[in-house]
């Protein structure tokens, strides 16, 4: 019963997505930032250099950024704890835990 996706005719080919400045979205979110503990870390920063870094695009708050030298940095302060990177990192290279109790994202509406 499987059908290959290449048979699909309707796909609109490549298109430019609207430019979204994610920081403006984040302005709407309340955080209690933990200044003493980082809850998201790369296990081995070197692993990311060789990776094609899907995290940079799929992270819904754009917390993952590539440095000029190919390393990845995480703006953990923006994290909304969705878990996408935990599940999706191709190399399981993220030490993912919840922020300490009370810290992190705090939805006002949800």
């Amino acid at each position, binding site marked *: 019963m499987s059908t290959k996706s290449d048979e699909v005719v309707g796909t609109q080919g490549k298109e430019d997505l609207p430019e979204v*400045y994610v*920081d403006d979205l*984040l*302005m709407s979110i309340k955080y209690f930032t933990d*200044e003493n503990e980082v809850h998201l870390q790369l296990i081995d920063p070197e692993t990311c250099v060789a990776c094609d870094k899907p995290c940079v695009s799929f992270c819904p708050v754009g917390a993952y*950024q590539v440095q000029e030298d190919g390393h990845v940095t995480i703006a953990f*302060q923006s994290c909304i704890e969705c878990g996408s990177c935990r599940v999706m990192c191709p190399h399981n290279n993220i030490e993912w835990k919840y922020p300490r109790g009370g810290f992190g994202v705090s939805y006002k509406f949800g």
Partner: protein
Amino acid sequence: MIRRFWVYIEQEDGKIHPVAWELLGVARRLATEIQDELEQTGDQACVEGVLIGENVEGLAAEVFQYGADRVYVADAPVFKHYLNNIYTTALVSMAQKHQPEVLLIGATTLGRDLAGSVATTLRTGLTADCTQLQMGVGRDSTRKLLLMTRPAFGGNVIATIICKNHLPQMATVRPRVFPAALPEPGRKGEIIRETISIAEEAINAQILAFIPNDSSGVKIEYADVIVAGGRGVGGSAGFALLKELADELGGVVGASRPCVDAGWISYDHQVGQTGKTVRPKLYIAAGISGAIQHKVGMQDADFVLAINRDAHAPIFETATAGIVGDLFEVVPNMIQQIRVLKEADND
């Protein structure tokens, strides 16, 4: 009768804080705003300064140039350094004696400390961080009152406050909210020496030492050029880029609150409601969305240049000119073009 408009002339180590000149300008304007009443009653309005310190009488000459008609001086060794209760005692006793109608104090660290104590001791009202001051008729009032306007709720609302039945009407004003009075060389006035006795046992605190702190280098309130960054700057590295542009322009780096909260830059650089109020000639806002809390701190800049990727960022509403684009492309290009201009200038 003399209606007195008082300005506390803040000085430390014999140096007058420039906010005093700004307040003298305001006080002079307020005095002219009751001209109609003076004509009716035959009263007189005077702008007067209050100087407290040791060896400060000589500073009065400059105070006159900025518009004071009279300066009250409490000059004694006990006033060598600012201490809350000693200065409070001095200012309170002078105010009780001369009954000023209005008392303006700069909302500096020293001024805020002093104003709260003085107002409470005088059992009068105090409105902090005023952004507009005006003499006008309040509800049910026969005489013009000081209308004190200040931002509330993080700058989202402005409230006009009156102090109807108590004198003096006290307000603090942040540095750089009002322009400084223009000095009039040679202008003279009257010095009134005040003797304030401070009982030995009333001295309940003493300064053990002065320690230089790291903030003494940053004085963004009085900078002519500020290159400020917001969330869009992304981190400390981004601020290094802004610093490069600021250096090129002979300016300093500013920041919006989220950057300070995130620890990318120290609080001394923060512009806005909970930070500093600035009034530079040029304010470059890079990656700052322009929340109202930020705007209240920089909206009086002569020229605001906004750089933001989001064309809808509220900062563009305040900007004199704007570039919608990536600051990491725009700023390096700007640095480069300025360098070229500079070289051409030097030739």
